């Protein structure tokens, strides 16, 4: 067991909701604050979610609040938009560099690795990819720091007002549930209002993009997109609550789990993080003893295998 559980990460909830079980596992009896900002303009359409949770929910309305804050504060809006433009441009450049680095890596991984020389060169190619990922994250963080320094969002009235309201809503709740949706939109809103700080030590439930936003590194992925090579990309640093975990929601559809080379590449690239497939019914818990499964799960192993795991998973670092 994970010990005292502070976070439960779930598979997608729309078709086979397991939220009620997760709430019971947390031992929460009171109201639950929900974040559905990733649904963007559909943020308020949370009836099904409330039904799945099985108790009263309080939607924090982060998407609406962010829209309101931006409408109230044109300077903040300009700075925010400029930051997003920079991040988009940076992501595109990174994607181009990454394509070459990953091509090299895939080519070498395809070689007969019985010789030490090939293994060593493979490791070197992988190191280059990991360095590029790390460099990208640093560049992203630099842009965020510049924004924080220049715009000081936490000190602006438009944000402070919304933040106070969110804090008041959270005060009446025992837990926080973070739904999926658009991962960048969700992450930006959670960060803009400092929701995790406001939530304090309340236990958290998160799924899909919600789980990704809470991880330390947000990786976007799809092995078979209709356009492009399907290179998983580092998007952002996440909020760091899902320590050592790389959540891979909708893995069955998005990943070629039967292709050991692709699995191996992903698992080695993001090691030592626990790369865990999160489909319907999957549940992981984080607590004082690290990660553990609440239902049998699948971990992507550096060997290229997809391992069925049950019980303690360790710390992912």
């Amino acid at each position, binding site marked *: 067991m994970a010990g005292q559980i502070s976070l439960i990460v779930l598979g997608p909830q729309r078709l086979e909701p397991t939220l009620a079980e997760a709430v019971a596992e947390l031992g929460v009896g009171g109201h639950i604050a929900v974040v559905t900002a990733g649904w963007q*303009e559909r943020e308020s359409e949370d009836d099904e979610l409330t039904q799945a949770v099985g108790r009263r929910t309080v939607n924090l309305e982060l998407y609406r609040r962010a829209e309101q804050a931006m409408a109230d504060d044109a300077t903040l809006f300009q700075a925010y938009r400029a930051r997003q433009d920079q991040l988009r441009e940076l992501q595109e450049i990174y994607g181009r560099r990454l394509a070459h680095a990953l091509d090299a890596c895939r080519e070498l991984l395809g070689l007969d690795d019985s010789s030490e020389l090939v293994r060593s060169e493979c490791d070197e190619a992988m190191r280059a990819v990991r360095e590029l990922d790390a460099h990208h994250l640093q560049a992203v963080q630099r842009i965020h720091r510049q924004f924080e320094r220049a715009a000081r969002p936490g000190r602006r009235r438009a944000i402070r007002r919304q933040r106070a309201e969110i804090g008041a809503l959270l005060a009446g709740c025992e837990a926080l549930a973070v739904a*999926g949706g658009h991962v960048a939109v969700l992450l930006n809103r959670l960060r803009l209002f400092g929701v995790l700080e406001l939530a304090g030590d309340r236990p958290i439930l998160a799924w899909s993009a919600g789980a990704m936003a809470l991880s330390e590194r947000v990786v*976007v992925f*799809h092995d078979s*997109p*209709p*356009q492009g090579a399907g290179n998983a*990309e580092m998007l952002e640093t996440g909020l760091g609550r899902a320590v050592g975990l790389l959540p891979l929601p*909708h893995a069955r559809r998005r990943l070629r789990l039967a292709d050991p080379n692709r699995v191996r590449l992903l698992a080695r690239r993001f090691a030592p993080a626990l790369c865990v497939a999160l489909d319907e019914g999957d549940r992981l818990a984080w607590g004082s003893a690290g990660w553990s499964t609440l239902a049998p799960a699948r971990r992507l192993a550096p060997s290229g295998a997809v391992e069925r795991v049950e019980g303690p998973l360790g710390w992912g670092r």
Partner: protein
Amino acid sequence: MTAIENLLAGGPPEAATIDDFLARHQFPLNEGRTTTFVYRGSADQVRLRHWIFGLPSSLPFERVDGTDLWFLVQELPYGSRIEYKLELVTGGRRRLIGDPLNPHLAHDPYGANSVLHARGYQSPEWAEPEAEARPGRLVDMTVKSAAFGDERALQLYLPARLRDSQRYPLLVVHDGWDYLRYSRLQTVLDNLIYRQEVAPLVAALIGSGDRLVEYAADPRHAAFVADELVPAVVERYPIDPRPAGRGLMGASFGAVAALSTAWRRQDQFGRLLLQSGSFAFTDIGPSRRGAAFDPVVEFMNRFRTDPGKPAEKVYASCGQYESLIYENRSLVPLLQETGMTVRYSEARDGHNWENWRDRLREGLSFLFPGPLWMVYE
């Protein structure tokens, strides 16, 4: 050695042996690069009738001496998809039938054909109904047309969870009902939008009672689409006003209608999806394609001289087994020279609705990409 060679190795087989052979295999039988077609029954001749440009349109089967078993062994490139019928000749009478041993059928406005999926061809799973996908809906609409002097009925595909606060691309689909019936367009849109591969969009599914005239670069059609249809849809639904949010799509003559409309109304339509376009042209002398193509040839010759820039992005496709492959390949460099972003794709298939269905994912996701990489619900 192929299965049919094995069967015949010991001389003409007994009827029971043939029964067993037919029961043990699925036909047509793919073995490596070769495909064996089989027919069993009485006839004077059996022929394979197909629409593969490059092969004789009628290929004779061979009868196994002393039996009613007929076969044809044909080498087919990897990934081929072939629509065909069997022609039976009996007492001088000819009859076209579907292949009784092949359950796969493809439908079109003229009926149904048997379909061969050669080695390497995969029917797209995204064209099958998905329980998870939120279905869009079809609504009827009529538009008064001064250009044609009548009233036009059409259907609109509206994506699931349409909201007035959002702006959606509008895709005008020529031969829209045929795309619905024979290319599963509604299922494809539902699935690709649900998977976030294609942005939620509104599709105007239009038709024509006289498509060989109206779709043949007829200026009235361009006026109808640009000046009457689009404003009527915009009035009722939240449509993206930018050219990037306006697309035209069609196959065969429908592709000519799409291209010619965009050409006549430059800067209005930013996206073009052109499938197996009937883009007949001449470098010198008259066209041999027949009178119906004359206005097309005239338009294409003008277009080739003065293409302008009809759109921003174009996806074009053609089957390698179509007679139009030359015209479509010829068009690609010309489209590229206009400064448009062009994606061109070929398939080992013919001029048919399932070929066009199979290219929809690539084409639509290129023209109207969805937030696939960012959305995890």
